[in-house]
């Protein structure tokens, strides 16, 4: 199989950047999942789609708005009414979901090349993300595993909280480098490390 080329190019510079003192407030990583898939359910079919997606991914997803589930490298979260984004390290997630979700229940759209996944983690993650998005990132308002669909200026972003101070951001591939540079820029203040 041909390997995917990251859209970040030379902008992805490993190591410490920004404020040099102390431990970095932020760790940034391109997680490069093998599959990123959008799942849609027709109105009234959300329950069966959630059940099918949970079974394929092996994670328990609740049929609630903006709910999500994370287990290791597999993750799924709500990005709109009857709409979820799922990711997995393996590359065949879309075909497995297609088998499990019938056309009468919903749709499966492979976005593995169309979106990239960035992980922002560390004690300053909420602070840095708050510079970009008018979203309440506090743990009580945005619990672990939950998802959000939002935008920064012209850039759509889907966000899942994967830990108390960790978030996975899914960004349109063509915008990825611009967004990455902005993310690094905003993280300079707290110091950041690209891993």
């Amino acid at each position, binding site marked *: *199989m*041909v*390997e*995917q*080329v*990251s*859209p970040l*190019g*030379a902008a992805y510079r490993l190591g410490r950047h*920004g*404020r*040099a003192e102390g431990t970095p407030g932020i760790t940034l990583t391109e997680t490069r999942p093998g599959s990123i898939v*959008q799942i*849609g359910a*027709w109105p009234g079919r959300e329950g069966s789609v959630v059940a099918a997606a949970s079974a394929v991914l092996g994670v328990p997803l609740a049929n609630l708005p903006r709910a999500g589930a994370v287990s290791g490298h597999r993750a799924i979260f709500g990005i709109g009414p009857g709409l979820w984004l799922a990711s997995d390290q393996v590359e065949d997630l879309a075909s497995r979901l297609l088998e499990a979700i019938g*056309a*009468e229940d*919903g*749709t499966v*759209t*492979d*976005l*593995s*090349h*169309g*979106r990239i996944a960035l992980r922002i983690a560390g004690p300053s993650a909420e602070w840095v993300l*708050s*510079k970009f*998005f*008018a*979203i*309440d990132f*506090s743990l009580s*308002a945005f619990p672990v595993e939950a998802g959000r669909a939002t935008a*920064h*200026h*012209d*850039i759509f972003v889907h966000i899942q909280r994967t830990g108390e101070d960790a978030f996975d951001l899914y960004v*349109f*591939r*063509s*915008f990825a*480098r*611009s*967004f990455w*540079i*902005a993310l690094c*820029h*905003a*993280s*300079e*203040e*707290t*110091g950041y490390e690209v891993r």
Partner: protein
Amino acid sequence: MSPRRAPIGGRIDRSRQIRFTFDGRRFMGHPGDTLASALLANGVKVVGRSFKYHRPRGIFSAGIEEPNALVTVLKDGVREPNIPATAIELFDGLVVESQNRFPSLAFDLGAVSGLAGPLLSAGFYYKTFMGPAVGPLRGTRFWRFCEWFIRRAAGLGKAGYDPDPSRYERMNAFCDVLVVGSGPAGLMAARTAAEAGKRVLLCEQEPALGGSARWSGETIGTRFASDWVTETVAELAEYGDIRILPRTTVWGYYDGNTLAALERVADHKAYAAVGEPRHRHWTIRAGSVVLATGALERPLVFPGNDRPGIMMAGAAERYAVEYGVLPGDRVALFTNNDTAYRAALGLERAGADIVSIVDTRSDISDAARDLARQAGAELISGHAVVATRGLNAIRQISVQPFDATTGKLTGAPRTLDVDSLCVSGGWSPTIHLASQAGAAPRWDARLQAFLPPEPLQKWIGAGAFNGAFTTREAIAGGIAAGAAAAGVATPQEPPPQVESADLDVHPAPVFEIPAAGKAFVDLQHDVTADDIRLAHREGFVSVEHMKRYTTLGMATDQGRTSNVAGLAIMAAARGLSIPQVGTTRFRAPFSPVSLGALAAERHGELKPDRLTPLHDWHLAQGARMYAAGLWQRPMIYPLPGETVEQAYVREARAVRARVGIIDVSTLGKIAVQGPDAAEFLDRVYTNTFSSLPVNRARYGLMLREEGIAFDDGTTWRLGERDFLMTTTTANAGRVMQHLEYYLDTVWPDLRVRVTSVTDQWAGAAVAGPHARQVLERCIQGAALDHASLPPLGIVRGEVAGAPVVVCRLSFSGELAYEVYCGAGHGQFVWEELMAAGEPFGILPYGLEALGTLRIEKGHVTGAEIDGRTGPRDLYLDWMLSKKKPFIGSAMMDRDGLIAKDRLKLVGIVSLDNRPLSGGAHIVEKADPENPRGSIGHVTAACFSPALGKYIALALVQGGRKRHGTRAYISDPVRDRYGPVEIVSHHFVDPEGSRMNG
């Protein structure tokens, strides 16, 4: 004697000295100083010249309300004018300049305009510079003639021309309780809300928290008030869910309890830290808000009240207690209320000689009398200051018996020698945010002040903001407000006890002393009490009109020290009470906001670039890039020394003669999926898609509802319920919105999902006579012969392991294929295609060559589908299905769209062998002086290598009826006039034999 630093006292760090420069002179100050306190400590009395009369002015206040001491800060090569010296924190190396003086502060030529003072009264410009009705200077011409001179003489500081290198940032915050102001009320509100477990945000515009408790000299809970502040702030920081933002002004209160704040992150430092912004704009979404913004002292209006050395009494108290700075040695105070007495004691303890306290009232409280005694001041009650003297600083005042009830002066004046006069005319609650939040303030006759309105949004007031001017009330009010904001009962434990003098907070209703001389109401704009009366006499009775006519209350200080007095004088002139005259409502911002902070990352950085998967390859090949919307696309791949035209002609020739390849990844791509997808496409396209077989593509046209052409592109049927729609690059977002709108609101019953997959696919169009051979050399697992892959057929295969989808379609008119693969494989597949094409001389081509090829072929794009053309104008009638309705079908043949004079698509050939330009008009007559009317315009033009001529597409009245006729291009902007022939828009291979062969 000049103002000076007291030997002890103040909360400055006396162990360290820092340098600063004012008007080129070097001075020393201490950490903790403001520029104003440091200038006073260095004996600088004149810090600016006034707006109109160029009168010398000194430091008047100790906060953002400062009307006089505006300076220009020079930092990082940037001039930032009109900053109050009272709000600048001193740092080592600070450089500032005074403003509005020429040639220098001490000697100002403009001051002669002070001699012509009466000429510059209210409305002077309106009256003087409205020119005569006739003649060379009629109307506003005379004004324009004089404007340059006036602007030079009047005004504030000057901004620089250099770009600002500072960094600005935006931040979003959410909280349960926002507390604005950190005086005793704000601190208690924040602590009570935090104690109740709420998420609290506490904003304080000054560098240090505590408000008046920092300088009041009172005792709170057995400690000095200032120590109580330190301890309370330390306690607050212990709560987990509180954020404290000093140097942060909440400046706007918007709907839905959304507030705007400006944090000055690095203004107080010589250098910002790595990554640190200079200013940070906060958008705060608060559950509830506690407004504890305190009150601002207002001055009294009397002749000569603007002389350097005259200062607000509360400000003088702050300078003495907080900074250990005395405004003078021989100080008099002039007041209509008790608070000035506390200031007198503060000044006396710092070492000043309090000459006298002049009080307009006859009846003085015992507590105030006691303070006067302690300060060693002569109490002159029932008197008013009627004049001041001194050249560049005050040296003498005259006081005269005054009846505060009747407002009349009696008896004879006496003089007092002083070098500082501290004035208090009462206090105005800082109700700006409450006013912004929705309602009109209400007048309180006892406090002689406007109090906040009833809340229309979820806010609660506390402390001096509510007119509760004592610290005891502020603490109790803060606790109650914090509990109410948190939605809990007020805590039972008793509040900390306050020990303070029992002062009478109600001022006498005195705003102006009726003596002869220039008495300033608005110091910043040089508006006098007589100006207001003049405005009244000239008919400006509304307070809003008076403000505009006199400019009272405008500019950077927004009349914080002048609005109420101005209103009172207007009310007196009209014989009405103050509330009958009304008040101006407050608008955002509360205090000046840097535009950089509002723009934040939009400044210079984030208009995001959209990059195709091949972006780095294009750059490596030396492509000249071109911004197409947000996308970066190759315009040409020039050889050294080539012009744009030479490059695109070479690239286009290669496509016609051999084979070329172009990055088409930017085309909008939308997955249309679901059981009703085909039905949906039949409705949104003018032609039919339900009949399209799987693995075939069809060219489609969309109209808007009113029958105008909207977008075109091919849509591929990848499965029974699975379509891939392509749109023009520029229209992708609009088409997506269009589709979502119809699915969400018009046809919610259709089971169709649309998803943007533009970024999922990299696309390469391989075009030219050798295109099939190139593909055959690198694509495995797919038959590419004409029978297996006819025009608009789709096959799937692999390129060295990377899956690809190939569709045979042509934009250039040549044999052409679009090869799509996963975007992450884009560069790999592209390089494989380049290698496979090498034996055929494959050449990458850019947008210019693409445009040339499509003009030659007569394909339309956004230049022709311009929001005005209908499908018949573009000769796309053949795409309009008669068997089904579609969006736009009901309106596309209305009268206006089928009129005879519609502009229709034609081709144009230049007959004088000179270039044509888009936007040029087509006219019928050869004479440039008499061209007759325009019959149309050029939409796209190029040099056609296929024809060896300059050609263009155009929209012309009559369309194909004019084929073969002569016309002229008229392009006055580019000075071009010449003969053209109108021809078919299909310049090259109209039969399509090249692409279909």
